[in-house]
C-alpha cells in the first residue's frame, strides 16, 4: 500500500502489492536497481515500511554538487530523496509523536541522483544487526522527520559517486563522520572538502579523483587534527592483525587498504570457544574471527571473515595496510605499549613469576586497549575491580587523559567476560621513558606510581590485596555489542 503516492512524503507499507520495487518507482531519477539491491541487502532483516522524503537537501551531496556536479553540462538534480526505514507500518499521525515510532525506526539512506552509485549518506541503527556477536564502534545521530526528532546509534556509511569522490574519500568520510558525530573536538567535514585535503600532496589534478595513496589519506587525517599512524602488513609481519585488533578494541575505527581499494574497519567478532586452546600466553586478538567493515561499493555492516567466505570478498590477509587515526595526545603507540607491558610481566621484580602465583598457574590471556582516564573511572564501581582497595585507589588517583590498559585473565575467566588484573600505562608518555607505568594490579598485590600521579618523580607503592582470585568484569565502553 502506498499512502499519498504523489505527495512529498509518500509512505510505502510493505504488503503483497508493494515493496522495494514500489519504493524505487517513487524515486525514478534517484534510486536505480543497483541501489535498490544494496538497500535490500542491508535491511533484509525486516523493513515493513518506508517513508519517502522527497526534495531533501543533503549537506554532503550539496557540497559535491556545488563544487563539482553543477559544473557539468549534464547536471544532476541538486536535491536528494531521503528514505526512512521502519520495522512496523507507520502513519502520518504516528510520525507526530517520537515515542510512537522510535522503536520501529532503524535508519535512513540519502538517495542521490548520481550514477553509478546513488547511495549517499546512510545511517542504519545497530538494532538492525543484533545477534551477530560482534563489537563495533558507534556514534549517535538525531534525525528530524517532519519535525519529529528521532535518534539512531550506529556507524555512518556513504558510497562514492565515482566522480568527485572515490573509495578513498568515502572511507575517509565514514571514519571522520564517526568522530565528528561522537566527539565535539572534531568538526564535521563534507566530501568535497575531503578531496581538497590532499591538494598539497598530489601530482596533477585532484578532481575527478583517481584515488589516493595511503600516505595521502594519512596526510588528510593529519589536517583534520588527527595523529594518524600507518601500518603495513609486510613490515609489521605477524604483529599486523593484532595491532589492528588493538586499535579497534580501543574504539578507533581504521582505514584499511586492500588490493586497489580501501575500506573502513570499525568492529570485530570473536570465537571465545578458542579460549580453551590457549598456550601459556595469548592475546585476545587470537580469538578474533571477523572484522566488521563498511565497503563503499557494497552494503553497510559487512562481515570480513578471517579466511574469507563472509559478506565481503576479502579475507584478513587481503588487508595490506591500515591507518589508525589517533587523537593528538596519544603519544605511545600500540606496538610499543605491547613491548613494554610484556617486559613488565616477565620482569624479575614486577613480573608474574615474582608477584602472582595465581596468574602463574594458568594460561594468561592479554587484552589491550586505549581509553580515557575519565571513561575508565566511570566503570570502576560497576566492575568492582576485584578488591575495594583497588577501586578506591583508582578513583582517587589522578590519571592522564589517555591510558593504555592491558587486562590480565585466564582462559576460563576471559570466556566469561572477566579479568583478574591489569597494567595501566600513561599513553601520553614517550616510549623511551621507563616510568610510564601507572599501576600493576595482580590478584595478590597492587603496585601504583603515586609520585607521577602527583606530577613528581616516580614513586612506586605496593598494597596487599585480600583478593581470592575471582574475576571481575572486563572494561566495556569503547565498543557496543551487536
Amino acid at each position, binding site marked *: 500500500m502506498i499512502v499519498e503516492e504523489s505527495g512529498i512524503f509518500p509512505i510505502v507499507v510493505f504488503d503483497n502489492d508493494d515493496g522495494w520495487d514500489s519504493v524505487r518507482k517513487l524515486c525514478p531519477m534517484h534510486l536505480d536497481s543497483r541501489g535498490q539491491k544494496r538497500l535490500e541487502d542491508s535491511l533484509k532483516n525486516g523493513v515493513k515500511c518506508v517513508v519517502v522524503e522527497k526534495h531533501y537537501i543533503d549537506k554532503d551531496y550539496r557540497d559535491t554538487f556545488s563544487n563539482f556536479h553543477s559544473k557539468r553540462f549534464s547536471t544532476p538534480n541538486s536535491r536528494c530523496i531521503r528514505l526512512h526505514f521502519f520495522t512496523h507500518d507507520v502513519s502520518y499521525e504516528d510520525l507526530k509523536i517520537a515515542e510512537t515510532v522510535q522503536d520501529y525506526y532503524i535508519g535512513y539512506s540519502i538517495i542521490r541522483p548520481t550514477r553509478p552509485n546513488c547511495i549517499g549518506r546512510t545511517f542504519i541503527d545497530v538494532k538492525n544487526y543484533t545477534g551477530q556477536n560482534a563489537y563495533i564502534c558507534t556514534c549517535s545521530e538525531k534525525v528530524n522527520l517532519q519535525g519529529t526528532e528521532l535518534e539512531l546509534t550506529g556507524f555512518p556509511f556513504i558510497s562514492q559517486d565515482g566522480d568527485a569522490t*572515490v*573509495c*578513498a574519500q568515502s572511507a575517509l568520510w565514514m571514519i571522520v563522520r564517526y568522530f565528528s558525530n561522537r566527539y565535539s573536538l572534531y568538526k564535521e567535514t563534507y566530501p568535497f572538502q575531503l578531496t581538497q585535503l590532499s591538494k598539497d600532496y598530489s601530482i596533477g589534478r585532484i578532481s575527478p579523483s*583517481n*584515488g*589516493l*595513496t*595511503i*600516505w595521502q589519506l*594519512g596526510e588528510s587525517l593529519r589536517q583534520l587534527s588527527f595523529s594518524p*599512524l*600507518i*601500518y*603495513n602488513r*609486510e*613490515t*609489521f609481519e605477524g*604483529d599486523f592483525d593484532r595491532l589492528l585488533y588493538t586499535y579497534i578494541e580501543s574504539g578507533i575505527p581504521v582505514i584499511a*587498504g586492500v588490493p*586497489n*581499494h*580501501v575500506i573502513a574497519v570499525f568492529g570485530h567478532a570473536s570465537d571465545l570457544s578458542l579460549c580453551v586452546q590457549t598456550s601459556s600466553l595469548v592475546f585476545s586478538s587470537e580469538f578474533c574471527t571477523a572484522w566488521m567493515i563498511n565497503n563503499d561499493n557494497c552494503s553497510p555492516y559487512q562481515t570480513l571473515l578471517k579466511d574469507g567466505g563472509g559478506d565481503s570478498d576479502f579475507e584478513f590477509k587481503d588487508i*595490506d*595496510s591500515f591507518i589508525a587515526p589517533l587523537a593528538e595526545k596519544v603519544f605511545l*603507540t600500540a*606496538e*610499543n605499549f605491547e*613491548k*613494554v607491558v610484556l*617486559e*613488565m610481566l616477565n*620482569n624479575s*621484580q*614486577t613480573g608474574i613469576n615474582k608477584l602472582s602465583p595465581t596468574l602463574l598457574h594458568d594460561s594468561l590471556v592479554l587484552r589491550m586497549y586505549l581509553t580515557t582516564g575519565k571513561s575508565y573511572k566511570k566503570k570502576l564501581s560497576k566492575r568492582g575491580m576485584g578488591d575495594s*582497595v583497588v577501586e*578506591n*585507589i583508582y578513583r*582517587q588517583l589522578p590519571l592522564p587523559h589517555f591510558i593504555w590498559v592491558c587486562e590480565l585473565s585466564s582462559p576460563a575467566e576471559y570466556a566469561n567476560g572477566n579479568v583478574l588484573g591489569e597494567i595501566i600505562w600513561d599513553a601520553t608518555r614517550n*616510549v*623511551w621513558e*621507563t*616510568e610510564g607505568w601507572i599501576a600493576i594490579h595482580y590478584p595478590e598485590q597492587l*603496585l*601504583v606510581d*603515586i*609520585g607521577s600521579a*602527583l606530577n*613528581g618523580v*616516580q*614513586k*612506586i*607503592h*605496593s*598494597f*596487599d590485596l585480600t583478593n581470592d582470585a575471582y574475576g571481575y568484569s572486563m572494561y566495556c565502553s569503547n565498543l557496543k555489542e551487536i
Partner: protein
Amino acid sequence: MEPTVETFCKEYGGKDFFASHDEYEKFRIRFGEAIRPGLERNREARRKSEEAARQHCIA
C-alpha cells in the same frame, strides 16, 4: 595542605615497593635496556610502513 605520596599511602596502607632508591634505579636501567631492542625494531617497522605508504595507490 597539598596531598603527598605519604598521605595517600597512609590512607590505604601502602608501602614502598623498592627497598631503596638504588634498587629502583637499577630496576629502571635494566628495564630500559630490556625494552630497547624491541622498540628499535618497532621504530624500523614504522619507518618502512611510512615509506611503503607513499607507493600504495588505491582507487
